[in-house]
């Protein structure tokens, strides 16, 4: 039994989410092969070969895979995947985009966003915005699974010495093309991999006031997130959204500022190790999940916090 893990990367560096996915693969058990599909992605393959627990790295280096277009990538993964017991990818926007396409090509059901491996066929995944946990069992010939990173501790990025094998065949569906990308350039860590996150909600009142949070975040080396209410109100862009319909995070420390704690937000952050809530409404539901709650005006508390860090 061997497991194929799709590497998450940008052609230059291997994304941390891959390490969590390999961790899930280790719990399933079996030889772990990592597929690096991209263009000019040799450095990623080298990095993947050093990941602890990886037996083999397959590299498909071709322009057709440069931007991870699912129409091209899914054909490749499905062709390779039929020889594996499991095909895994991180539940990132990229993994979510391509993996169901792979499953359909293999004519198997997919299991999305597992947070726990019970055995090689049985997994746990949250449903209803995390308000229920389903234990599901698959009898599919190839089990196609997306992995929620926060459910699995990352394996070490070094220590492995996998062989690297090039894949010659190229699959280009020719029905889609990459036009462009606007990726926010930031010195701050990515939300899904940050150890500390400072998030703002509707209580921030406007986008400019998020500067207060950036001040605290920079002192803590933290990422800045937002609730759906803040996104819907137009304070900040959607890629900052933490919650059921945004990013699922589980940092060491999560500081919720001016966030009431709607179910849909809690679903995205309640697995954080330590939760701090700052809110002027002491009845706010966020306090029911917070380890440390501070009832008060955020416009006084946040600058004070920044000063004391």
């Amino acid at each position, binding site marked *: 039994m061997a497991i194929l893990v799709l590497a998450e990367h940008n052609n230059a560096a291997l994304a941390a989410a891959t390490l969590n996915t390999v961790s899930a693969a280790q719990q399933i058990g079996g030889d772990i092969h990592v597929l690096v599909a991209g263009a000019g992605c040799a450095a990623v393959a080298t990095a993947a070969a050093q990941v602890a627990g990886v037996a083999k790295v397959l590299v498909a280096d071709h322009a057709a895979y440069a931007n991870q277009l*699912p129409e091209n990538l899914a054909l490749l993964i499905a062709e390779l995947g039929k020889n594996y017991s499991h095909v895994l990818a991180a539940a990132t926007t990229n993994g979510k985009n391509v993996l169901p396409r792979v499953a359909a090509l293999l004519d198997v*059901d997919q299991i999305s966003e597992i947070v726990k491996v019970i055995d090689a066929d049985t997994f746990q995944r949250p*449903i209803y915005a995390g308000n229920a946990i389903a234990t599901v069992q698959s009898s599919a010939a190839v089990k196609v699974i997306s992995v929620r990173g926060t459910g699995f501790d990352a394996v070490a990025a070094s220590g492995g010495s996998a062989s690297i094998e090039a894949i010659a065949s190229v699959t280009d569906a020719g029905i889609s093309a990459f036009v462009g990308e*606007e*990726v926010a350039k930031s010195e701050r860590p990515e939300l899904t991999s940050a150890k500390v996150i400072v998030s703002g909600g509707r209580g921030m009142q406007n986008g400019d006031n998020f500067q207060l949070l950036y001040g605290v975040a920079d002192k803590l080396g933290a990422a800045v997130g937002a609730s759906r209410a803040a996104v819907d109100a137009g304070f900040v862009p959607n890629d900052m959204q933490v919650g059921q319909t945004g990013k699922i995070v589980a940092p060491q420390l999560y500081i919720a500022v001016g966030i009431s704690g709607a179910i849909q937000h809690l679903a995205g952050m*309640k697995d954080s190790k330590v939760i*701090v809530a700052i809110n002027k409404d002491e009845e706010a539901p966020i306090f029911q999940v917070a380890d*440390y709650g501070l009832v008060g005006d955020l416009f006084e508390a946040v600058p004070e916090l920044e000063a004391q860090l």
Partner: protein
Amino acid sequence: MKILVAVKRVVDYNVKVRVKADGSGVDLANVKMAMNPFCEIAVEEAVRLKEKGIASEVVVVSIGSSAAQEQLRTALALGADRAVLVESNDELGPLAVAKLLKAVVDKEQPQLVILGKQAIDSDNNQTGQMLAALCGFAQGTFASRVEVAGDQLNVTREIDGGLQTVALKLPAIVTTDLRLNEPRYASLPNIMKAKKKPLDVVTPDALGVSTASTVKVLKVEAPAARSAGIKVGSVAELVEKLKNEAKVI
């Protein structure tokens, strides 16, 4: 162009669901049901394309029990032209749903199919991508902007860290993200008119589709509860606790 929109009947997003004591699922008895929020955005986008003169017809399809007619009528009231219900009382997984939708696509021959990116009950985020694979169509998932340009579709997608734009050959599949549009409310005259719009009912058997699944739900349980901690009196106390008690800063 003809647009097909798929919608799902789910628990209303304001309802806090409860897990059944026997672990067989969540309790849906007497719970308010509604159209999945991402599906509402899909209907709205199709109707806007029709209002712009780009779409000629908007057909809305749902797969579910006869009660899903309610959500189809809602979509008709929002501006869809006609509806198809693939009636099944089974709990179908995304692959089965995608296969049924593929059969509807074969029959209707739409140029564009719009779906929500995920349903807020099962949270799978699979059906649109699977349908695209089965049809051999290109896909623009998690769309925040859709623009028809001749025989091509430009879709701006919400990705980790920002936005990506792709150009897709039509016919194509789009799945909606939150910022694509703000759905309208149905007006009373439109709700009345929707009652007279055509709604066909077909069965999976009539479409010749097998809905067998390889995934079995063994149990459904409530997540581990997180208990409330303590209230601190000042920022200084908070910083002290984070440093010395929680040791996270």
